[in-house]
């Protein structure tokens, strides 16, 4: 059986499985849920996936994974996204922290921590950003001091997604305040329920509370919670961020193009259907071109993976281009609604509601790498342009 045949079979089996559960866990089931209820639903869904061989598809079976391929994972998550399953709530857990455990923890630790995460029983967060260190990760100041065989953590992290629901987290802390900034950090994992850890949700502009401040007040962790060598934390953090070889297109998208066409058919401009207006037509045509371009890039990456090659770096443009397009489409849709466009429902989903898609725009362009950082990455990693002037970097 060829790869293509195998993947076709895999896709149709996956789709049948997803269709069976869509009613219980998909778009409809998520309507009007609070964030806490969504998280609970996401954990239950993860358990169902684990029982059917669809959780952690690429991980070894001994840790609860499916022992499958990167391609199978991408095919599954692409299909999964179409039904609106709440997979995004565990994307961080399974995307970075737990894979880091899989690669760098002891055999005993892996046995303890990986399977429960795969089954959706435990969640993990990533504690990198601080009030004084956002994109500039190496400026982290949270202190970790030696105390016998333990470390004591003091300081603050911020913008931590889903920390209020998490059992564990990975973090970088400053272990050598005298070393140059990139060289004095160490990588740990931490029990979020340990004494001295305080989590405070931050209300973002759309009233969502996905991110948190996390305070560490003399939190004691054993040296066994250190991943990698002392003062090698910056390199470990970069490895974490490069964990995903190829991320499937974001599932948390704006409303589909057809929704805009339907709206333009229903609304009027100067007494005529808005779809007949050149400004509207131009916007629809350009949205089409952007979406088709992005999906072609995604499809090409799949073909590269199928052929056993590494996909190129084109995937890095996805968030940048998608965020802009989403904003343009949402703005036009609201404009077409006229005065009634101001209606706001804080429980609405970006996928089905233009106002939510619109107000989520600024967050999208900052979270997980600002537009400026993404452009720097493209310029430096792909195009070979020099790094910015960096007075903070130690002379080589």
């Amino acid at each position, binding site marked *: 059986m060829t790869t293509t045949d195998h993947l076709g079979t895999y896709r149709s089996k996956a789709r049948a499985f997803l269709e069976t559960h869509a009613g219980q866990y998909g778009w409809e089931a998520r309507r009007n849920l609070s964030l806490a209820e969504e998280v609970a639903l996401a954990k239950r869904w993860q358990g169902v996936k684990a029982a059917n061989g669809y959780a952690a598809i690429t991980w070894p079976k001994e840790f609860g994974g499916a022992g499958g391929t990167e391609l199978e994972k991408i095919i599954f998550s692409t299909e999964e996204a179409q039904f609106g399953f709440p997979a995004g709530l565990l994307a961080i857990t399974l995307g970075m922290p737990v894979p880091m455990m899989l690669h760098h923890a002891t055999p005993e630790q892996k046995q303890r921590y990986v399977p429960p995460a795969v089954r959706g029983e435990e969640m993990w967060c990533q504690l990198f950003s601080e009030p004084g260190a956002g994109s500039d990760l190496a400026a982290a100041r949270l202190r970790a001091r030696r105390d016998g065989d333990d470390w004591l953590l003091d300081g603050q992290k911020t913008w931590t997604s889903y920390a209020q629901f998490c059992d564990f987290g990975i973090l970088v802390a400053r272990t050598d305040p005298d070393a140059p900034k990139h060289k004095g950090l160490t990588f740990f994992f931490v029990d979020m329920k340990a004494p001295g850890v305080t989590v405070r949700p931050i209300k973002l502009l759309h009233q969502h509370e996905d991110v948190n401040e996390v305070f560490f007040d003399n939190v004691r962790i054993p040296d066994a919670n250190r991943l990698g060598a002392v003062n090698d934390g910056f390199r470990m953090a970069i490895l974490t961020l490069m964990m995903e070889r190829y991320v499937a297109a974001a599932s948390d998208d704006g409303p589909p193009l057809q929704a805009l066409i339907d709206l333009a058919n229903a609304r009027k401009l100067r007494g005529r259907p808005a*779809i007949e207006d050149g400004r509207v*037509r131009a916007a629809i045509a350009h949205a*089409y071109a952007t979406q088709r*371009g992005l999906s*072609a*890039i995604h499809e*090409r990456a799949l073909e590269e993976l199928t052929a056993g090659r590494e996909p190129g770096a*084109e995937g890095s443009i996805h968030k940048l281009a998608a965020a802009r397009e989403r904003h343009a489409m949402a703005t036009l849709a609201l404009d077409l609604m006229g005065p009634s466009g101001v209606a706001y429902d804080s429980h609405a989903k970006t996928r089905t509601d233009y106002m939510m898609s619109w107000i989520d725009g600024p967050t999208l362009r900052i979270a997980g790498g600002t537009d400026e950082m993404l*452009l720097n990455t493209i310029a430096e990693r792909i195009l070979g342009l*020099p790094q910015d002037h960096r007075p903070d970097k130690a002379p080589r």
Partner: protein
Amino acid sequence: MALSYTADQEQIRNEARRFLEDTFESEKQRELLRSRGNYDSALWKACIDMGWTGAGVPEDHGGLGLSALEVCIIAEECGRVVAAIPFLAPTYAASMALREFGSEKQRSELLPRIATGDATFALAVFEDEDGLPEAPLTTFQDNRLTGRKIAVAGGGAASHAIVHASNAIVLVDLTASGVKRETADTIDNTRCAADINFDGAPAQTLNASDAYAAALRLIAVQATIAAFEQIGGAEGAMDRAREYANTREAFGQLIGKFQAIKHRVAEMYVTIELARGNALRAAASLNSGAADFVAQAGAARLAASHAFEFSVAHAIQTHGAIGVTWEHDLHLFLRRARALALECGARPFWEDVIVEALQRGRA
């Protein structure tokens, strides 16, 4: 749907790139820009010798029988060096027209001549400011063609044209009596553009039941090939900007260290990759005969026109004053970007084509 290149296709690309880089002389190009109706005849002859004109012609008619994608690869490499050969895309579109709508006699007569480079084609479809007229003023009666087509790329030198008339798609020998071509100065004189007047010129009809639909399909084919040429041009401009940002110093450091410069170049890359995704998809739809071909060609056209013009504008800005001199190569790209954006249907026209296809469920 194959959106990736095979090893053989990469081989074609490498050969084309080597050949074009060796033969490109910007000085010669500047010379061609000085007067109207030009193209690089020596380069075109070399392309014929390389077998490129036979790429899209079936083997039983003396060609290489390659797919549209191979022609697209060659077009992209031509774009990278702003090659002054305006016949590639329309001639491929014409070979498609002959294969799809031509009689056995027309095919066996003309396809071999396209393969040998003896026949070159222009697509004559535009008449006035409207994109593709639903009812062209050009008429075809008793095997005679009468009317006027505007700014036909390659029209100043092509031996034949495919013409969109009010009731038919017709094939006309441009060297016949009753055909008068007028070249004019344009923003890019290397496109050899001409207004073509037909005054009872002898012509023969192609067997297309719906002339408008056939004409639209043909310019979609031309637009798909041109999109690759535009992407190549955009990359040529981006490469120059990269090189300059990596060598030019100001304020005590490489200008590439300034985000204002760096991000411009990264933005070029973003527009180019979006265009490439669309163009590859259009070529794949063309090859597979998918129903969304025309809409996808439109998406490729919008994205590639934007990528080229955007990249050139920002490459010039990256260079500062040297970028706006006659002696610098960037204006060759600037001129070509605008010429290609106008050549096979401008932006508003294609925006409408896409929306109509979406409305009819053919996108």
